């Protein structure tokens, strides 16, 4: 009797929920964006720990002082919770207006229409203060979707205290070759008698893989967003890691597996267990601050005579982007403009989000930096000078590239797959993920 009716209600309610999902909303055309006359409330979100929260709240206060009509509601969390929350709010068409982004996810959101085309709002947002090839890392399909905040290369972090402790001379890092690197790493492992290791190998994240590939004239992705890397390059990347383990320069597979994905404070670099590791430059000041007892340097990767120049590039450590569903695209663009161009904001942020991408700010900040900050800045300037073209960013569908790499890396480490097998399997899995995303 009342059964069919009840069923209708049920299906109806489920349908409303499905219809509430983001895809069904129609994004306003950003080109029509204009500042509204009345009071506006914007929301902004970022990930980080406490220091970043304070700095960003200060910057927001500055913005609100300059734009008294606009109230900014902040929300923030740690890295993993951030992406869960962002995905949920984006799915429900309830994404915050201004969003801190990482390049892993940038195409996945932009390519599916979740982000505001910032090229369409030039009257509110001027990103010209940033170098061309840095801005290129914020574009998807030729349109700017995200403005880089900080940049850094991928460097070798040396724990010079360990070199000193074990009586191993620090190599001349301006001219060093991979052979020099290996020799130094082996010397440290040997001299320390197992207390420390020469090198924490790469193997599990796409930034170092990208640089490794570029040293061989290869790229992970091509401009069309397809997986471009040669299986031989990938196999060599993992073989290098196995060689280090074999020679004793690096610890064994179990130790490395334990290290994988650990928060920085618990990693071997900070704990003084490793003399050299490959790190995004943006982490350098955090590493130095977490281990006050050690002295660190950050330097460029070793090269061989045939290595093409320009394998380094300043990679954005994070970005600001805006939601395509924002009711106030103009104000959102204004806020991003303020966050990337205002000198006071630059002072408030310091190097907490990496060395600022804006070169004027780099100069402004220099006198205020501590020693670690200055080293990070010098490294970034050096990378910028030697930089080649920025590689295409992680394409739509490949947001899992790092976890995928890490998974195959472990299988290689534990002897489950040879580097060649893993390279083929990895490329196939990544390719199908990218293709599935269209």
């Amino acid at each position, binding site marked *: 009797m009342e059964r069919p009716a009840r069923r209708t*209600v*049920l*299906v109806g*309610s*489920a349908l*409303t*929920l*499905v219809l509430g*999902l*983001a*895809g*069904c909303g129609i994004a306003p055309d950003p080109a029509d964006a204009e500042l509204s006359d009345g009071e506006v409330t914007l929301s902004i979100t970022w990930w980080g720990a406490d220091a970043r929260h304070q700095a960003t709240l200060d910057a927001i206060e500055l913005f609100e002082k300059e734009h008294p009509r606009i109230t900014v509601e902040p929300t923030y969390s740690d890295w*993993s919770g951030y*992406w*869960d929350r962002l*995905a949920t709010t*984006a*799915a429900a068409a309830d994404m915050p207006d201004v969003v801190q982004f990482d390049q892993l996810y940038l195409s*996945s*959101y932009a390519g*599916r*229409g*979740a982000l505001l085309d910032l090229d369409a709002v030039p009257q509110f947002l001027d990103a010209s203060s940033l170098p061309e090839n840095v801005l290129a890392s914020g574009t998807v399909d030729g349109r700017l979707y995200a403005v880089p905040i900080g940049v850094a290369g991928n460097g070798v972090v040396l724990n010079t205290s360990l070199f000193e402790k074990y009586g191993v001379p620090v190599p001349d890092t301006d001219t060093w070759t991979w052979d020099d690197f290996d020799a130094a790493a082996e010397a440290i492992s040997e001299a320390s008698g197992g207390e420390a290791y020469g090198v924490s190998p790469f193997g599990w994240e796409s930034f170092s893989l990208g640089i490794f590939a570029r040293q061989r004239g290869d790229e992970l992705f091509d401009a069309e967003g397809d997986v471009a890397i040669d299986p031989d390059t990938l196999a060599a990347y993992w073989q290098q890691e196995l060689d280090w383990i074999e020679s004793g320069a690096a610890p064994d597979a*179990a*130790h490395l*597996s*334990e290290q*994988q*994905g*650990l928060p920085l404070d*618990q990693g071997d670099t900070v704990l003084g267990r490793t003399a050299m590791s490959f790190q995004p430059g943006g982490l350098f000041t955090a590493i130095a601050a977490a281990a006050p007892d050690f002295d660190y340097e950050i330097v460029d990767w070793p090269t061989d005579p045939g290595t093409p120049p320009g394998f380094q590039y300043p990679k954005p450590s994070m970005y600001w982007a805006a939601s395509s569903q924002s009711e106030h695209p103009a104000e959102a663009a204004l806020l991003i403009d303020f966050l990337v161009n205002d000198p006071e904001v630059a002072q408030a942020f310091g190097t907490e989000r990496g060395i600022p991408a804006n070169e004027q700010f780099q100069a402004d900040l220099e006198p205020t930096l501590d020693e670690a900050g200055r080293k990070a800045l010098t490294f970034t300037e050096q990378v910028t000078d030697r930089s080649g073209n920025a590689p295409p960013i992680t394409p739509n*569908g490949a*947001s*899992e590239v790092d*976890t995928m790499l*890490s*998974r195959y890396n*472990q*299988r290689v480490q*534990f002897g*489950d797959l040879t580097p060649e097998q893993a390279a083929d399997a990895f490329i196939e899995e990544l390719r199908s*993920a990218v293709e*599935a*995303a269209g």
Partner: protein
Amino acid sequence: MSAIGELRTLRRTGRGRLSPAQKEAEAKERRRDSRAALVFLAPWLVGLFGITVGPVLASLYLAFTDYNLLQDPNFVGLENVQRMLGDERLGRSLAATLTYVVVSVPIQLVVALALAYLLDRGIRGLAFYRSVLYLPSLLGASVAIAVLWRLVFGGEGLVNAFLGLFGITGPAWVAEPETALGTLIVLHVWTFGAPMVIFLAGLRQIPRQYYDAAATDGANRWQQLRSITLPLLSPIIFFNLVLGLIGTFQSFTQAYIVSNGSGGPTDSTLFFSLYLYQEGFAGFRMGYASALAWLLLLIIGAFTALNFWASKYWVFYDD
């Protein structure tokens, strides 16, 4: 023993043939019960139809779509099911989950029951022990646990330091594919506080008169345990078993924090929920994740149904 026997006979004799007048009375009672049930169940019904059913049906629909969180879901029929058939990681994830459930649920229940029984016997310092035994469950799956677990079960952790005293060099338990799942089982068993407390509450509910009667009959403690405690506690054991299975099949947080969300090393701790989370939230394949969730529901549902069917043979209800 005899007390239970009496109750059982009582129950059986209660179901004789009914006269028309009795039938009439029963029908009346039924109507009265139905009305009362509607009142008592009102909050639950509102919750079911207002909050629960919508998302459940939505996820069922999404299981047949290519939903990627950011764009319209497109209906794709059985494509997700097809994908499952060729999904290697799904196989590894099922294997890890089943091993975890089958090993850790019984062990945890036995430990919880044994300790609850021990604590129920009015031992001195009862409150202290109970609190201490419950402590790990209070901590929940916090970040501290993740850190600690590595310090205990890492290559240079406490366990290996202890083994070192006997000249044994242990592996890096959390980091080896062969042993990582084992440490998670230990972690699960270690948080036996919740079932233990439920057992304790259940033990406390057993009327003392039964024991007195049994003691008069000359039953020793062992006989009392088998013929009074276990049968009368069986609904609670059943509860802990069913909910333990449902909860453990869905285990997520422990593997998530200990493996930094990867389910590694080499997928050895890739619990089912963790895998579907990775698919849905990291890979933006929420349609496939929803299909996986419904597969999980079918598996848990089958286990639960089996449990309910088997319960007829060993669970004793006093009503």
